[in-house]
């Protein structure tokens, strides 16, 4: 009985001690704080769940949590900073069948957003 009990107490600690991911992608010139603000401003949350962004509970596209641990962008492209920035700026140019439209924005905004997605994890 005591052992089971202690296991319950230890279990959350185990998760808390899960090894840090060894690789955090860096976006050149990307600022996560500005990125969060940009994600809110462009209302990306209409389609995506984005932790930390107000009202971002959309179910149209995939959830964007734990983005640094994802292997692929949109299930197709290696999850590297430049690839993600290109995707945010103009997804249809990379995958013509995608439902994600190209929203007119500056590349700087896209860099910031990518930075937030990687760093907010």
């Amino acid at each position, binding site marked *: 009985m005591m052992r089971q009990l202690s296991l319950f107490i230890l279990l959350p600690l185990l998760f808390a001690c899960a090894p840090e991911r060894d690789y955090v992608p860096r976006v050149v010139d990307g600022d996560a704080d500005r990125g969060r603000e940009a994600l809110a401003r462009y*209302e990306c949350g*209409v389609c995506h769940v984005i932790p930390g962004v107000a009202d971002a*509970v*959309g179910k*149209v596209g995939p959830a964007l949590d734990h983005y640094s641990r994802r292997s692929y962008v949109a299930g197709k492209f290696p999850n590297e900073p430049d690839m993600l920035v290109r995707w945010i700026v103009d997804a249809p140019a990379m995958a*013509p*069948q995608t439902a*994600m*439209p190209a929203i007119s924005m500056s590349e700087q905004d896209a860099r910031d957003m990518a930075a937030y997605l990687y760093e907010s994890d």
Partner: protein
Amino acid sequence: MRPPHPASALDPASGSGAELIDQLGTALYVGSGLIFLVVMALVIYAVLTKGRPVNARYWILGGGLAFPAFTLTVLLMYSLAVGNGLNAIGSSSALQLFLDCFGLGDARARTTVDDVLRIHVVGKQWWWEVRYERAGQSEPVVLANEIRMPTHQAVELVLSTTDVIHSFWAPSLAGKVDMIPGRTTHLRLQTSEEGTFRALCAEYCGGQHALMALFVVTQNGDDFDAWLARQQTSVVEPVDPFLKIGYDAFFRGECHSCHTIRGTPADGTSGPDLTHVGGRKSLAAGTLNNHIGTMAGWIAGAQDVKPGNKMPSSLAYSGVELRALSAWLGSLQ
């Protein structure tokens, strides 16, 4: 710092009814603040002192009866003056309206404006239909969730509802008036300021009451006339092949059974008129900014954005169709 779309009774547009009410409010805040401080000082002093003699008549009749009776009488007259003045706004300050009661100021021009522009606003769960019916107007102008009006001219909103009670409130422009089934109510708007002001539903109207806003855009008379003329134009079938995909998707997806787009076969009436949807400030009644991303997100995820609203989340479209449809609707400026 002023927000981009003022929506505050404390930040009224110049020359608006809200400005008069704000002046009245300032008088109330100052007066109440003083009374509050005096009463509190009396209470604290009364607790701290010991056994002072009291003239009951002085306290009760003076402080409790004469003072409030006098103050409230003045306040009532002041408020009546302002309330009446709101029907002929734009000419006076709140103080001036009050002084007029005693014949101290210039006699106020009480003439009701004849060339008042009437705009019909219909509250619906949870959006607003806006109609312009002007003599000599060729096509009906029906839009949603956005009112445009000229500056320096009295506008009368004719308010009604097709379902439950709503209330129209543009805090920076005027007070609120309810929209009640079986009745039409009226609200006078006027301002000399060009800008975009936010308005919201102020009467609880069910599930998504919180997401029922609209924008009031005030423009100078020329710009307004040009806008109204443009609103009367109809839509033609697009030639661009990508937009044509969107056009076809619109009809394939049954959108037309609820929405009207003049110039096309779409003539549904239960949802907003989309003839010039691309030119509007917002989607989903002031909930989202209007751009291609939010358009696509709203079409595909209307029930995620505003659960319980009458528009279903459209699941019938391929990615390309969704983008094309959003692009085509966005092009209807």
